[in-house]
């Protein structure tokens, strides 16, 4: 059986109960063999290092990481994969029902690993406790859910909960996800799951240095010498612009560096080769001469006199600036009775979605088709067309399921390499970033250096506010301009501030590009503002919640950009909802601490509070969404899903809104998309805009389509529609009258619909003037959160014990999805606050870069506030980003309450917390 020449042999084992015989190279990882040789793409690869658990399979019943298991080790063993379990295992079936009911699968990339681990647990302990579930699932990371829904689902499954939850209900219903079934059965196809096995593979050669000049050697000879390589791509192969970016005028990142690299991980060439050969191909063996140069990694270094400029156009390495001012900040501060100030710094934060970037491309009838994970299909389309120098009609983007995005998958990653490789070879090609590549080369949250002074008068009113923030934007622009614009608008927090000045600068450095990450800079500025608010309250001898209420925005009160809203300003309602719980939690902490002092415990309980706000949609820029729907001659009602659902649930929310507007049940809908050929542009999935903007487009489309139907039969506005797929008819019941529309007799449009509608929505905004005055967003969402923590006073360890999160969502289109967003956002806020710090060149994996595990997330009590928005569909507001804004400052305020320590640097790792505790003791 052993073949010395090809270095492989056959292994036989049982896969999901069926015997299989697999030819695999010696030493191949089981995950690779299962996915590529057995077709088991339900086994996911998130890290190839045991760190994420996405590849979990059951080996003779025990969960193991398939990525650490040599394929030949499973000879004669029983291997079960998540999809196999979902098909045949009774615990798996109970679990999938419970997962659907609890909304425990968001993007779904972690779900296979979670389910496999949970099945093993239930087989051993059919009714596990919460702690047992934590221990059993501790090895599987989830970046979306914040884990609590998963915990609840597994505990419920153990208690025999088997009630399925329906996909049903209009606005306000806690419907199951419309895209949930595939995510739970293991059938969902993510970026690396769509390519046929055996398609040629692309691998990128990247810079090992943050700054270096380079000369490529004889690559043609290298290709000729290396078996299996087909071709190489470099800057010379880019037919159009060798640059991309996400903001017009800021396309400064090359597809391939031409002679100099500006960050570690920057691409200089890509190799295309046959799949088998590429498994053992290491791009670092290619001939290239590097000349390392000294790099600037921090804002301070980049702004120092004499520092070389990364880009000729950016003097002092300042990429762009933002400014908002109203009143007179200096005068306000001078008139203050108390002033507090602070200097804060935050770190690079990695999105750490469990799915690394991946995709597949081919040329079809002369057009290039790219299937990949993305948050912005139409932006990809335009950027790729520009790089290829073809018209946008020549490009088709087929977004796959996205295994988490959080902002980073707005930018191009694999797409240009795939497109160039498919065009050059004429063959279908695939590529998947390794975890290291993903962490090295894709965008991060901006590290911030913030100085802030806030003054208040003795009556408790904030009277002066002066903010200055530097944001490390890395080597290329990405979304740096958005961060620079958003921060000065939001740095006030949701408060009325008469005299305000906020300046922001985005600074180029030789770090990976900083881009969009849930909140675009606002979570960083909120840390400074909300922790200083607590210090102000203390100086004024005011309760932190009372102090915030005294200064909170309200309907009719103008923001720092001079905007005011007649309705829907919900921050006061959030704070008021927390008020009773706040008092209870503070009192309880006092009692707990008294007992701890007498018991000589090193732990202290603290309770902290923070609020936040976030404008939905682009800042002072148009950002329309278009939604299409139609009724086929057969009678099916089809909604085109152009907005990418990255796990947050936009498919479900948009469908619920559409169903409500047209007046049918959710389960009457069928769906197509996303596909840039057939789904109109619903804009990018970012800026918390999909519920608000695409939701409005869906509402309009539903209303227009309903009107068309009613007009056809002269029915009244009260009439109800009955969708009868397959019947060729549509029924309209209007009181006692029944109308039948014979759809097959109607002419069809170019999409093949008998009846169709296509509507757009673009929120009303006004540009900002030189002082940042204007109406940057048509709506804001509001939030306030309480964090309760235990601080270990001798070790500096912080253990969050509970969160209470009040969120004004205008109208909860789907309360289950709202809770999912809140808990997931809190988990990311917790990570940013306590453990996440990306250090270029050092933490390019998921064991040095730590994100919360299932054991790190305490209970989150979600309070949904509904202060209807004037523009949102049924009053709804966006939510995705708001949730993590108050989390980090609430935690820092809780740490201070518990220990006296002032945290001015994120993350608050145990050593930093301990140092801050000691500093507070000395002060």
């Amino acid at each position, binding site marked *: 059986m*052993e073949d010395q020449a090809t*270095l492989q*042999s056959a292994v036989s084992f049982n896969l999901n109960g069926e015997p299989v015989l697999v030819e695999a*190279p*010696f*030493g*191949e*990882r089981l995950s690779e063999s299962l996915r590529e040789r057995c077709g088991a793409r339900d086994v996911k690869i998130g890290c*190839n*290092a*045991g*760190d994420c*658990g996405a590849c979990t399979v059951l*080996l003779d019943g*025990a*969960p*193991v*990481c398939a990525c*650490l*298991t*040599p394929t*030949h*080790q499973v*000879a004669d063993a029983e291997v079960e994969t998540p999809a196999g379990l979902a098909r045949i295992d009774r615990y798996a079936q109970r679990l999938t029902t419970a997962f659907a009911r609890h909304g425990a699968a968001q993007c779904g990339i972690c779900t296979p690993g979670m389910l496999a681990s949970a099945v*093993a647990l239930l087989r051993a302990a059919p009714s596990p406790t919460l702690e047992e579930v*934590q*221990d*059993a699932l*501790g*090895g*599987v*990371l989830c970046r979306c859910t914040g884990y609590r829904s998963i915990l609840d689902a597994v505990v419920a499954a153990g208690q025999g909960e088997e009630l399925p939850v329906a996909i049903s209900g209009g606005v306000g219903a806690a419907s199951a996800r419309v895209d949930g079934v595939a995510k739970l059965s293991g059938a969902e196809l993510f970026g690396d799951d769509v390519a046929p096995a055996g398609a040629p593979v692309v691998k990128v050669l990247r810079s090992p240095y943050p700054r270096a000049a380079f000369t490529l050697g004889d690559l043609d000879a290298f290709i000729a010498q290396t078996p299996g390589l087909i071709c190489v791509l470099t800057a010379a192969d880019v037919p159009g612009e060798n640059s991309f970016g996400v903001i017009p005028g800021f396309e400064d990142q090359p597809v391939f560096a031409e002679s100099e690299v500006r960050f570690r991980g920057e691409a200089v060439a890509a190799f295309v080769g046959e799949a088998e050969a590429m*498994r*053992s191909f*290491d791009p670092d063996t290619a001939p290239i001469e590097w000349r390392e140069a000294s790099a600037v990694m921090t804002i301070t270094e980049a702004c120092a006199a004499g520092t070389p400029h990364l880009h000729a156009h950016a003097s002092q390495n300042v990429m762009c600036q933002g400014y908002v001012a109203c009143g007179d900040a200096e005068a306000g501060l001078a008139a203050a009775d108390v002033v507090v100030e602070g200097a804060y710094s935050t770190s690079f934060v990695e999105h750490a979605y469990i799915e690394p970037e991946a995709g597949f491309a081919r040329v079809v009838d002369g057009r290039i088709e790219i299937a990949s994970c993305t948050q912005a299909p139409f932006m990809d389309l335009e950027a790729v067309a520009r790089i290829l120098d073809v018209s946008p009609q020549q490009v088709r983007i087929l977004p796959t399921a996205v295994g988490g995005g959080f902002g980073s998958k707005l930018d191009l990653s694999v797409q240009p390499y795939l497109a160039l490789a498919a065009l050059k070879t004429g063959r279908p090609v695939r590529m998947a970033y*390794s975890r*290291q*590549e993903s962490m090295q080369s894709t965008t991060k949250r901006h590290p911030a250096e913030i100085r802030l002074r806030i003054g208040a008068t003795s009556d408790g009113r904030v009277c002066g506010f002066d903010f200055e923030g530097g944001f490390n934007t890395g080597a290329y622009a990405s979304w740096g301009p958005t961060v620079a614009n958003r921060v000065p608008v939001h740095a006030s927090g949701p408060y009325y501030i008469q005299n305000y000045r906020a300046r922001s600068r985005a600074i180029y450095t030789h770090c990976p590009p900083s881009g969009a990450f849930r909140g675009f800079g606002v979570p960083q500025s909120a840390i400074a503002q909300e922790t200083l608010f607590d210090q102000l309250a203390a100086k004024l001898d005011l309760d932190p919640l009372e102090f915030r209420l005294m200064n909170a925005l309200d309907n009719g009160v103008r923001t720092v950009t001079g905007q005011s809203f007649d309705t829907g300003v919900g921050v006061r309602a959030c704070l008021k909802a927390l008020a009773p719980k706040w008092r209870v939690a503070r009192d309880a902490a006092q009692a707990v601490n008294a007992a701890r002092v007498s018991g*000589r415990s*090193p732990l202290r309980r603290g309770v902290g509070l923070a609020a936040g706000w976030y404008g939905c949609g682009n800042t002072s820029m148009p950002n329309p969404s278009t939604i299409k729907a139609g009724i086929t001659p057969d009678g099916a009602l089809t909604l085109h899903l152009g907005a990418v659902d990255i796990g947050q649930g936009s498919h479900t929310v948009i469908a619920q809104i559409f169903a409500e507007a047209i007046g049918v049940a959710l389960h009457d809908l069928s769906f197509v998309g996303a596909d840039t050929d057939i789904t109109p542009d619903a804009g990018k999935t970012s800026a918390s805009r999909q519920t608000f903007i695409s939701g409005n487009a869906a509402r309009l489309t539903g209303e227009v389509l309903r009107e068309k139907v009613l007009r056809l039969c002269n029915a009244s506005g009260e009439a109800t529609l009955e969708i009868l797929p397959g019947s060729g008819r549509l029924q309209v019941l209007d009181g006692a009258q029944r109308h039948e529309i014979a759809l097959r007799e109607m002419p069809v449009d170019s999409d093949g619909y008998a009846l169709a509608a296509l509507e757009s929505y673009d929120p009303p905004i006004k540009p900002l003037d030189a002082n940042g005055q204007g109406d940057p967003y048509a709506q804001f969402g509001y939030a306030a959160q309480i964090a309760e923590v235990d601080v270990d006073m*001798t*070790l*500096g*360890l912080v253990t969050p014990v509970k969160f209470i999160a009040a969120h004004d969502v205008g109208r909860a289109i789907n309360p289950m999805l709202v809770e999912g967003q809140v808990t997931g956002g809190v988990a990311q806020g917790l990570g940013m606050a*306590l*453990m996440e710090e990306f*250090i270029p060149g*050092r*933490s390019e994996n998921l*064991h*040095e870069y*730590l994100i919360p*595990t*299932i*054991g*790190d997330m305490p209970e989150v009590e979600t309070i949904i506030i509904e202060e209807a928005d004037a523009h949102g569909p049924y009053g709804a507001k966006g939510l995705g980003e708001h949730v993590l804004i108050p989390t980090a400052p609430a935690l820092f305020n809780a740490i201070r309450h518990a220990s006296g320590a002032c945290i001015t640097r994120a993350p608050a*790792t*145990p*050593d930093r917390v*301990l140092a801050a505790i000691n500093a507070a003791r000395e002060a």
Partner: protein
Amino acid sequence: MRYLAARSVEEALEALADGAQLPVSERPKLVAGGTDLYPALGDRPMRNGLIDVSKISALLPVEAMEEAWRIGAACRWSDLIKAPLPPCFDGLKVAAREVGSVQIQNAGTVAGNLCNASPAADGVPPLLTLDASVELRSVRGDRTVALSDFLLGVRQTALAPDELMVAIHIPRRPTSARSTFLKLGARRYLVISICMVAVMIEPDADGKVALARVAVGACSAVAQRLPALEQRLLGAPMNGLALADLVTAEDLAPLSPIDDIRGGAAYRLVGAQELVRRALSSVAGG
């Protein structure tokens, strides 16, 4: 030979002896759980041949011998957790439950943890407090080496290229011996220790400390015992707070922590001292 699923120790030893003739880069590697071997590859494929020792039945069990306990080299962390063992193993079992995750415990072996010789290997401090030794075998013969002599430095051991670790031996202790393990990490699961501490104590009939062993990991290239403290604890009453109060900063002299991504050297020392206090306090009770 590119992949040998060894069925016997002898078969593995033959393959190792053959491999030892080759240049280092071409030698086959031993693999048990693969949980250190595969992550170390990064994005590169496995180029070396593998000698898989995980299925050798003679290496599997945890056995009670006359003089000592024997942990076979293929014993995984989850096997250890399930094994019926006396209380002096409690610390090792706590450590086992803290290794990575269930997935890692189901594959990774105790022996692999030692052979990989990471400064942060959670198995080392408890085994040091148990005075463990390791049995190494090759076609040339058998030898037993104290664990403290086996571990030479960061990823350096006394293992010769043709040698296989076959077992870990732990001298029997009176059933009164108690032990514990504490780990300091920045999150709950899947976390490399900032530092960790193992303590083993045997009380005498009068409730005084008759034997004490304390070891600290991740604060030096190889985990270290704290002999000065161990001496001072002798004869002290088995009272948690009293034992904890005997710990001084000077006791940590054998440690030489470094600054790394998980914590600064100074913090590590503070953490180690506190963990030692807490471990003593919990193991002595009262």
